[in-house]
């Protein structure tokens, strides 16, 4: 991949311009982050900053950004700096600005009290104007003028206090009201995004390179926000869940380690309510699903990639597998309820949950195993065949061992996914809201042999059992209340436990992949 190199010729007279544009991008970034903080109520929009209300300061910043952005375009257009601006900003930018200005026009005229016709008229007029400004002049004007104007308009509204703390606007017919507390940050986020993109284009000197920079800024922002959401979610659940998870936790004493939240039930006898039955339920659920799905999925993958000829049968299996993969989990739940429950004692049971999740795990295992087996180079098979080894021997001692890393990774990631599934087990497995420790399933000790059919039975498998995700759902529907000391803390602890169980599976799965990949590349 080539990185665009900057030649000395282009750089000469543009250092100041570039520095200013870079500064504008940075300032837009700061405004974006602060706006986000205001939206999340980390800072209030009427907090005084440097003698000004935050919302007014936002307005000043947006005004400045808007004016500078327009300035970049004008400076380039009148050749104060040399840029690679093209004849037009392009149809995509034009469409985007048309939409933005149409929305701005409709919103502003709506707030000013114009009717639907007026709103539409103003919106269409401004949209058309934005289209003309973007599409017809040279690119440097086209991609800065409408953007700067948006920021200036937003800035004016904030500076003059037309929109600010205490502002509110009832949405007629929607039974909802917009308040300054949410609208101001939203306006700031939006305007800073627009100026950030425009300034980034100016930084790149417009043209192909400018578009490159502008697009990269937006993409990095998108990916950064996704990662920030991920980290934020995990951190939030962790902070809220730690007190519950470590309630009564101690090291030393009678046992080496005492962790009541993970080893207690939630009955009257337990001083500190714990999630042991649900945790054990999840463990057995995963074991059961894996026992059903992994041999089946790997076997099917072997047949499909080693024995079967590509044809109608393999095509049908592939379509069915992908169809199963995308089937909603609640449909699996309905299927389990209609198919498995009548066949296992007509009540919600652990084994029905195991098999339902097994059905869900099957396509995941099959798809990843098949990919792993297909990734084994044909040379391995040919070498083995050349030695006179039979087909099955080749599969068993050459193909499968080589495919094991991929299969393992796929299985672990799949397990992580089904361990957190709620909808299927809600319909097939059930269980109590706050099960006591005695409700924990005793699968190993439960097998019984009898002389009459069905000869083998296991009451533990046939009972409704709780699992972590189900218990969390049951707690929520019970209104986060119950016969325990602190249901809120308990529920967050439970959510953290569930999240940790799933994340551990993912960490192991991803770790295994890296380990094997590094081994392969050595």
């Amino acid at each position, binding site marked *: *991949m080539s990185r665009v190199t900057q030649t000395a010729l282009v750089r000469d007279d543009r250092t100041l311009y570039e520095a200013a544009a870079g500064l504008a991008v940075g300032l837009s970034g700061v405004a974006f982050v602060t706006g986000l903080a205001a939206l999340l109520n980390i800072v209030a929009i009427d907090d005084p900053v440097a003698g000004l209300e935050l919302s007014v300061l936002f307005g000043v910043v947006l005004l400045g950004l808007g004016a500078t952005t327009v300035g970049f375009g004008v400076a380039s257009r009148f050749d104060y700096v040399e840029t690679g601006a093209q004849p037009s900003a392009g149809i995509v930018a034009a469409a985007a600005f048309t939409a933005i200005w149409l929305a701005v026009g409709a919103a502003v005229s709506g707030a000013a009290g114009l009717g639907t016709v007026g709103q539409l008229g103003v919106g269409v007029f401004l949209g058309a104007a934005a289209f003309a400004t973007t599409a017809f002049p040279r690119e440097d004007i086209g991609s800065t003028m409408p953007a700067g104007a948006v920021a200036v308009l937003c800035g004016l509204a904030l500076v003059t206090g037309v929109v600010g703390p205490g502002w509110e606007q009832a949405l007629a*017919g929607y*039974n909802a009201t917009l308040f300054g507390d*949410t609208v101001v940050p939203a306006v700031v986020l939006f305007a800073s995004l627009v100026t950030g993109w425009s300034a980034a284009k100016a930084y790149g000197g417009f043209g*192909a*390179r400018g*578009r*490159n920079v502008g*697009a990269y800024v937006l*993409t*990095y922002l*998108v*990916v950064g926000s*996704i990662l920030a959401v*991920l980290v934020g979610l*995990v951190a939030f*659940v962790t902070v809220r869940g730690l007190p519950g998870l470590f309630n009564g936790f101690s090291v030393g004493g009678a046992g080496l380690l005492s962790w009541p939240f993970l080893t207690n039930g939630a009955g009257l006898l337990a001083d500190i309510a714990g999630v042991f039955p649900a945790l054990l339920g999840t463990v057995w659920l995963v074991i059961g699903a894996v026992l059903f799905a992994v041999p089946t999925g790997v*076997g*099917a993958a*072997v047949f*499909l990639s080693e*024995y079967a000829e590509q044809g109608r049968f393999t095509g049908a*299996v592939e*379509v*069915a597998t992908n*169809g*199963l993969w*995308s*089937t*909603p*989990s609640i*449909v*699996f*739940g*309905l*299927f389990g309820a*209609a198919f498995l429950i*009548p*066949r296992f004692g007509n009540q919600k049971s652990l084994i029905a949950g195991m098999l339902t999740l097994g059905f869900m795990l*099957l396509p995941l295992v099959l798809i990843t195993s098949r990919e792993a087996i297909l990734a084994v180079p044909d040379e391995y098979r040919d070498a083995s065949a050349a030695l006179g080894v039979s087909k*099955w021997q080749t*599969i068993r001692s050459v193909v499968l061992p080589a495919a094991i890393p991929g299969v393992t990774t796929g299985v672990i990631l799949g397990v992580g*996914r089904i*361990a*957190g599934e*709620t*909808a299927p087990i809600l*319909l097939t497995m059930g269980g109590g809201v706050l099960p006591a420790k005695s409700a924990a399933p005793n699968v190993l000790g439960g097998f019984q042999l009898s002389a009459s*059919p*069905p000869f083998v039975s296991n009451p533990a498998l046939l009972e409704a059992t709780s699992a972590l*995700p189900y218990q*969390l*759902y049951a707690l*929520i*529907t019970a209104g*986060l209340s119950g016969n325990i000391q602190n249901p809120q803390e308990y529920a967050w602890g439970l959510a953290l436990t569930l*999240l940790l169980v*799933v*994340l551990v599976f*993912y960490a192991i799965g991803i770790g295994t992949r890296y380990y094997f990949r590094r081994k392969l590349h050595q």
Partner: protein
Amino acid sequence: MSFTTLQTDWRASIERRLTHTRAFVDDTDPDALAVVLVSMGSLLAAFVGFLLASAWTAVPLGAFLIATGYGWARHQALLARAVTFAMTTVTLITLGLIVVFIFAESIPAFQYETTTVFGVSVPGFGMFAQARWDAVSEPVRYSLLPMIHGTVMVTTIATLVAAPLGVAAALFIAEIAPPRVRELVKPGIEILAGIPSIVYGFIGFTVINPWASGAFALNGGSTYLFVGMVVGLMALPTVVSVAEDALTSVPDVMKNGSLALGATDWQSMTSITLPAAFSGVSAAVLLGVGRAIGETMAATVMLAGVPRISEPLVNVFYGYETLTSLIARGYGSANGVHESALFAAGVVLFVTVLCLSIGSQYIEARMRRRLGGAE
């Protein structure tokens, strides 16, 4: 092709099969053949027994285990082939059973909602011709329209979130990111896929709903807006991983050609990579839409649970019920036609998502063919 040639064709193919089978039987050790036949036969018997809910299912299952165990020790190669074949059919059988069972359970509801259209009585038409869902008070009607409206609202918002962000993130991972950053972002997005939906729902229920209630002065905090955004976040990883596969499957030769002409990375992406992978990327978005339609727990926990169409139709500030949350909320307490109507909701979901899945597979297959077998 005329009828007779078709018939002879058919006959010839069967005859060929028969000769093949005969040759195979002659070549194979009779002991091995017997074991495989016993093993597969008893497996089939066990499956039939299970279907009929017979208490004797354990007998053929035991026979299967014994025959397979013996055969594994003596005739592994042949048995392995037979057993893996049996395992392959499991996916087909599962899909078939899902279709049969949820359709069968939904028949009473479709019959109950029979409506006459132009003198012809159409079963199930009443589910889509009026908007009343009430399982308790008279008149008892089971219209799916309110829930379909909810699902459409949530899915639209979710797609608006997941499609642009997902495609941008896929472009980033496939084309833009330096290797080190990619090694960080890719697992990050995978982990995002792993966060259980009930955890999202729990956060939505305890944090987002109360916040939305105050921030927009709403009656209650259930909104399609925020459910849609949460569901979009959940559908995002699907879009990213499938779109990334499509983008990386564009042959490097094409991109390098563009770069060699002096195009910037972004120009190569927008004029070479994205157009070439367009069908794959749209398949990714379709699959993301499918995920959003099927997402259950966050919707169940965050929505109000009242089967109602919002006023006006596009009011995103109030959230009532989706197809999935209807099933999850109502299943335990429903019986009779009500329960059957929940299965009917399941049928609508299943058919919609299956169509999306098959559609995206078709698009992907076409893209592979067009890129000249670059897989």
